[in-house]
């Protein structure tokens, strides 16, 4: 099944791991992102835990590239907005009556580091996991099949829709539509572009649905999956350990709220 996601196949232990194990790892990093006290801890977790995992998956460079693309707008916005407007005493840069303080900058970068762990872990998950395997694992845990169907189908078809939208845009340009024209006109011209795309898709829906029903899609009862997920006791143990670690981190974080 070809879906449009970050997934990059490799013959690595991380790729071969059960999707729920990888999901648990993502959960751990998310919890670390929330629970760790300051930026040194956060960056240490990133460098000593996340990067080695990416390297183990054979995806260090793609991971760094993806993480950079997602994170740099946050680093920029957080440095500027929290740098200038979060409480702080030691001025670094002064523009007019506004000053960027070291404390503000640090608090902004700390949030960025938390996001690095949280978003980085989701990127790593997507880079190493096929979406249909992930959905199958969730289904086995009780997630309704209708929901996994919606997610997987949407992932599969959206590139086609993006292409169709781009074709409509280009054909309008060929008819002399100026994109640089003022934005009220751009909005008015948007509807005739968007409407045929959407109406055409709705007609499509009925055909798809009939094809599905012809394959007993809505038939009650378990269906045999073509995909098989490998799992073993070691991974189950690892998942349990990860869950415990997350719990411990949360307790530690909540405890710190009460310690002066």
């Amino acid at each position: 099944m070809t879906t449009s996601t970050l997934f990059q196949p490799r013959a690595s232990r991380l790729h071969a791991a059960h999707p729920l194990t990888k999901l648990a790892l993502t959960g751990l990093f998310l919890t670390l992102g929330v629970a760790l006290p300051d930026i040194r801890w956060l960056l240490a977790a990133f460098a000593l835990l996340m990067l080695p995992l990416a390297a183990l998956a054979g995806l260090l460079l793609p991971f760094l590239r993806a993480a950079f693309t997602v994170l740099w707008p946050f680093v920029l916005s957080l440095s500027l907005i929290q740098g200038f407007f979060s409480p702080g005493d030691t001025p670094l840069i002064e523009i007019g009556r506004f000053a960027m303080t070291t404390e503000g900058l640090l608090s902004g970068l700390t949030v960025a580091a938390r996001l690095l762990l949280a978003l980085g872990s989701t990127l790593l998950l997507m880079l190493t996991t096929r979406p249909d395997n992930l959905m199958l694992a969730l289904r086995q845990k009780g997630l309704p099949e209708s929901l996994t169907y919606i997610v997987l189908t949407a992932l599969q078809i959206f590139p086609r829709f993006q292409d169709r939208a781009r074709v409509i845009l280009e054909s309008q340009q060929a008819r002399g539509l100026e994109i640089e024209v003022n934005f009220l006109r751009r909005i008015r011209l948007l509807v005739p572009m968007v409407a045929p795309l959407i109406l055409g898709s709705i007609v499509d829906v009925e055909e798809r649905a009939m094809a599905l029903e012809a394959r007993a899609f809505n038939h009650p009862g378990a269906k045999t999956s073509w995909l098989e997920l490998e799992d073993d006791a070691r991974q189950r143990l690892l998942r349990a350990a990860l869950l415990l670690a997350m719990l411990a981190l949360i307790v530690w974080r909540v405890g710190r709220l009460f310690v002066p």
Partner: protein
Amino acid sequence: MNFRKEFSTVNLVLMAVAIAINIAVGTLVLNLKLPLYLDSVGTVLVGVLVGPWAGAITGFLANVVWTLSGLFPQAIAWAGVAAIIGALAGVFARAGWVQQWWKAALAGLITGVVAAILSAPIAAYVFGGVTGGGTDAVVAAFRSFGFDALFSNLAQGTVSDPLDKAATFLIVWAIMLGLPQRFKARFSGE
């Protein structure tokens, strides 16, 4: 609410297609460099055609898809807000508000305000008061006036969300005009 009808096979397909529409229109608008998002046209469409629950699930799963596709990994943080937008679309539709353009626009405005109110705490507390997008310039402006993170994010949201959702509801209203009646009956969750 008729559960089997609202989640019939044809409606499941519609929800998947709606999510693809969200992404296609959202990226189109991004390329046109408009000061709007228009990334929930599909969600609102499902809410209007099928019902509030289907709209809510479409909104939620749309954000899951934005995240899983790698296009916008932070989307999952706003899945709850997206669900409420879909639900509100369904509620307004059941109340007959999507039949006249001005009522549809008003429904969109109200939905946008609700979305802004729900999004502001997420931006302020999860993302440190930013969203990473161009609208952060608006947030910065409000911060420079002395307002705190929560208020500034709320103010920025109130500037962009109602307009965006009003436009979204108007587009869906226009589509409903052009949609043959038999489709409306086919998808309806009632």
